């Protein structure tokens, strides 16, 4: 269609042969993207004017956070540790639970295609649940506090690691799997001995990366009462205790940074 509207460019070689070069789609796509941007700004009532006139409020809050209330750190240890514990236990249990699910979702391991499809749908349904919503529901079931947060993180981990893991399993080299079957193993035994060693490093790496992200998620789960440092942030913002908020954010930034560095170090070792 596009080629008919804009006929390909002809390049004549010295020996008389003609090569057709198709016209670039880039200008057409640029126009489409520009229209999409305009429409989305129009419907969301986005305005640069508001940004310019109100941005100073943002800096007012930042300035109010300076200097941070250093003494406030004594209140922070417990919720900060709760946040880390929540994400650690949630990531750990989630990463273990996801293993059988990911195997059952892999078409190359499960002989029955529809079983694999069902487990893929389950995993993608889990991924569509926003963590904040899962945490909120978990607080109704397990009560306010870190348990609800851990459950929410566990569920998110299952969805996230599950998808990446079954993709790795499906891309694994199947030659050794065939060899294991020829030795007399069942498909699941063949997975354990041929595919698992292949995907293990990337599985661990994905799980660590997910844990890194989960520490950040865990920090906001307190907003819905699921424990951790978010609870404190929510309170202090409400009380306009900005110097306390400054200290909390600083502590969070440092913690996340340290965890990221450690996790990155180990992930580099893995690959």
């Amino acid at each position, binding site marked *: 269609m596009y080629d008919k509207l804009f006929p390909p460019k002809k390049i004549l070689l010295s020996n008389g042969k003609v090569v057709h070069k198709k016209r670039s789609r880039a200008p057409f796509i640029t126009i489409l993207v520009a229209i999409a941007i305009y429409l989305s700004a129009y419907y969301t009532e986005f305005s640069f004017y508001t940004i310019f006139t109100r941005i100073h409020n943002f800096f007012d809050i930042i300035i109010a956070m300076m200097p941070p209330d250093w003494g406030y750190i004594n209140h922070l240890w417990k919720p900060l540790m709760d946040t880390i514990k929540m994400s650690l236990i949630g990531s750990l249990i989630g990463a273990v639970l996801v293993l059988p699910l990911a195997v059952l979702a892999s078409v190359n391991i499960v002989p029955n295609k529809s079983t694999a499809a069902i487990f893929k749908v389950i995993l993608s349904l889990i991924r569509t649940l926003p963590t904040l919503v899962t945490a909120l529901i978990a607080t109704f079931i397990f009560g306010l506090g870190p348990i609800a947060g851990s459950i929410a993180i566990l569920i998110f981990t299952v969805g996230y690691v599950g998808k990446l893991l079954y993709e790795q399993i499906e891309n694994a080299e199947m030659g050794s799997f065939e*060899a294991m079957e020829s030795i007399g193993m069942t498909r699941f035994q063949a997975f354990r001995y041929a595919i698992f*060693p292949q995907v293990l490093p990337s599985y661990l790496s994905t799980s660590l990366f997910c844990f890194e992200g989960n520490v950040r998620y865990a920090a906001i789960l307190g907003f819905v009462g699921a424990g951790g440092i978010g609870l404190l942030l929510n309170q202090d913002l409400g009380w306009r205790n900005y110097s306390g908020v400054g200290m909390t954010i600083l502590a969070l930034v440092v913690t996340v940074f340290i965890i990221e560095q450690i996790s990155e170090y180990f992930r580099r070792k893995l690959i």
Partner: protein
Amino acid sequence: MINFTDVGKQYPNGTKALEDINLTIEQGEFVGIIGLSGAGKSTLLRCINRMHDITEGTLIVDDVDVAKLKGKQIRHFRRGIGMIFQSFNLVTRISVLNNVLVSFVPELSFWRKITGVYTKEQKVKALDALDKVGILDKAFVRVDQLSGGQQQRVALARTLAQNPDVILADEPIASLDPVTSRQVMDDFKRINRDMDISVLLNIHHVEVALEFADRIIGIRKGKIVFDGKSKDVNQDTLDEIYGGKVEEFGTDAEEESLHV
């Protein structure tokens, strides 16, 4: 003994991979199977250990009617048949010894299967198998550190640890250089002779097949067109197997292997 009677194999899409296969292979024979790519050589081998199902006829291996086996019986049956592949099919991220030890997995208890902890006796058996193919010194090296020839020997050791009656080899030397190929073929010959294990191998290198195998089976379009002693193979039989594509003895057949 392996006995094919009127065996046929049709894939679900209608392609006939094998037709009217009648064949008897005695214990301890060394058989080379030759033919063009896609002629049905791999299918023939894979029917023997039930990696593929046959759709017609009967196939008896050591008094077992292969087509009648189910689930657990198939897996038990496969324990007695070793298989070697063109691309070695080892787990490259783990050690040589661990690659050989996998052949004991079906015998392990439930917890050992999950954890992958082998008994001392099994480790000794695995090391013995490595010794038989001459790479005992590489036992604790990771497989991805080894050359192609060494990897094929690890695969051979893995198969030997199974203590099989038959070894099926699907293009075992197609990814190896001529010198290494010869060493690996020598290994096959020695194992065949010393341990009375039947060896059936698919091979593209006609001259190697004629040199090492006692018996040659030629397959063309899923049918056996030649079955006889290696020394009875001449230019006419090769023409028939390869459809007149072999003009000079061996050389073209070797080129053929490059297209795999």
